[in-house]
């Protein structure tokens, strides 16, 4: 086995190793996506004093698998006079960027597929590319509702991307690096050293913009069942619809992971570093992958919590919040942070 491996050309070996790493990231991610849909139905169910799905498998745990099988066997209906190619490319364009962004996410110290220096910029670029899937789906479906949904979504994503970009500028000013790993390492030193404290309003702006970028409630006017049926994906059925669904949930997990990395110290433990020396429990109390997963899960839970709590925003108020509230807030905070960096304010900007 080893001989066969070493006999391969070096470039081929690099490709194989990268592919294996991608599989190691994507398989748990896709499982997480499937079970996020289950968690959503269960959690919202409990919040509304219902049980949620509980028929398939023990306590309903096989529900996502049943859903996936059902969607696989459903017919994909192509509307008349639609643009056939674009109609099928759209879901792929929607899913692709949300998976590709995981290439630069550090799961633990050094556990990252591509340790690039412009990681933050790469993530921002890819989240902005995701809007193409929505726009193309809306246009290619040849349907009024779909087109209206696509227009709303495009306007919303362009608006919130600016606030999101400014929020990321604040993070990079604090960390002095665009590398996500370095951003987390810049927060070493315990709970109060994480960037949520010096960047508290920015954390709020980023997470809310993230909810808006993923078209989730209360910013889900792009789907708006009560107004435009289901918005941009109204004409999609079967697997084509499932791919949009996967993209939405993968994006939610991505935004949660990024919030955990940039504002809540990623894999860093909230406890003093001395506690990691303790026998047995030290492994849990010290830094590690589990903290990153825990923080990501918490923000993912917030997405579901919001959906069960808030009524949908009115369209003009979404625009007002994006342009007239978030952008000024971020601009003021960039200025204040510039002053803090110049003064080398302890302990964050030293």
């Amino acid at each position: 086995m080893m001989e066969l491996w070493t006999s391969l050309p070096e470039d081929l070996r690099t490709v194989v190793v990268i592919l294996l790493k991608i599989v190691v990231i994507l398989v748990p991610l896709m499982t997480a996506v499937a079970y996020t849909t289950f968690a959503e139905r269960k959690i919202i169910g409990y919040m509304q004093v219902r049980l949620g799905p509980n028929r398939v498998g023990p306590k309903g745990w096989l529900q996502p698998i049943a859903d996936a099988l059902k969607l696989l066997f459903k017919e994909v209906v192509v509307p008349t006079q639609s643009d056939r190619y674009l109609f099928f490319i759209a879901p792929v364009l929607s899913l692709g960027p949300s998976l590709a962004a995981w290439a630069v996410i550090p799961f633990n110290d050094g556990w990252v597929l591509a340790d690039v220096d412009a990681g933050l910029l790469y993530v921002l670029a890819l989240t902005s590319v995701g809007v193409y899937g929505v726009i193309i789906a809306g246009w290619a479906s040849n349907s009024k509702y779909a087109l209206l949904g696509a227009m709303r979504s495009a306007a919303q994503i362009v608006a919130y991307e600016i606030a999101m970009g400014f929020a990321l500028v604040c993070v990079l000013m604090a960390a002095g690096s665009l590398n996500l790993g370095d951003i987390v390492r810049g927060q070493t030193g315990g709970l109060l050293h994480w960037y949520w404290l010096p960047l508290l309003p920015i954390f709020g702006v980023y997470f809310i913009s993230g909810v808006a970028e993923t078209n989730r409630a209360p910013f889900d006017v792009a789907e708006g069942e009560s107004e435009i049926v289901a918005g941009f994906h109204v004409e999609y059925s079967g697997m084509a619809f499932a791919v949009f669904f996967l993209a939405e949930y993968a994006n939610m997990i991505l935004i949660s992971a990024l919030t955990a990395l940039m504002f809540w110290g990623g894999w860093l433990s909230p406890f003093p570093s001395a506690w990691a020396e303790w026998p047995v429990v030290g492994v849990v109390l010290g830094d590690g992958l589990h903290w990153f997963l825990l923080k990501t899960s918490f923000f993912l839970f917030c997405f579901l919590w919001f959906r069960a709590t808030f009524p949908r925003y009115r369209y003009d108020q979404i625009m007002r919040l994006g342009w007239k509230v978030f952008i000024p807030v971020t601009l003021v905070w960039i200025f204040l942070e510039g002053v803090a960096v110049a003064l080398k304010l302890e302990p964050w900007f030293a």
Partner: protein
Amino acid sequence: MSFTQFVFFVFAAVAVLSAAAVITLRNPVHAVLSLVLTFFSTAALWLLAEAEFLGITLVLVYVGAVMVLFLFVVMMLDINIARMREGFARYLPFGLVVALIMGAELVLYVLSRAPDVAPPAPAAAGYSNTQALGEALYTQYLYPFEIAAAILLVSIIAAIALTLRRRPDTKYLNPAEQIRVRRAERVRLVKMKSES
């Protein structure tokens, strides 16, 4: 052929083909999407040249923002495709002249720098394009950079000032005022005697 070269040729071919598709496809939406693909492949080529900051910024600014607005407008247009194809023969000679001049300029430029068109040596391990760009922009080119920023700011303000006009006919509601509304401002309880 190394793997890097293979990747380079794939992206270069996609860039050239999609650029050709931009001007040959009949449907304007398809043309805009081909332009997006061209930008994307170009960004990938820049990444291969170790200019990751520029490459990703290209995707962020052009693909993520400018082309979305382009697509937005083009989707809304009800374009008569037959009429768009009418003037093709009439504009062809002019187009050919422009293409010839641009092609000649490109060839002249490449020929004049023939000795240094060889691929540059790969940068050292610790090299960061982002850092190098930042250092160059904020030290050596500080004044041109700041002046360009000021000009852009002025043009943004000018663009907003040009489109900003008072529109008394809109039914805009101030959310803060909406929230501050009290019952007494809207409803009045009137006591009336029954008139039977």
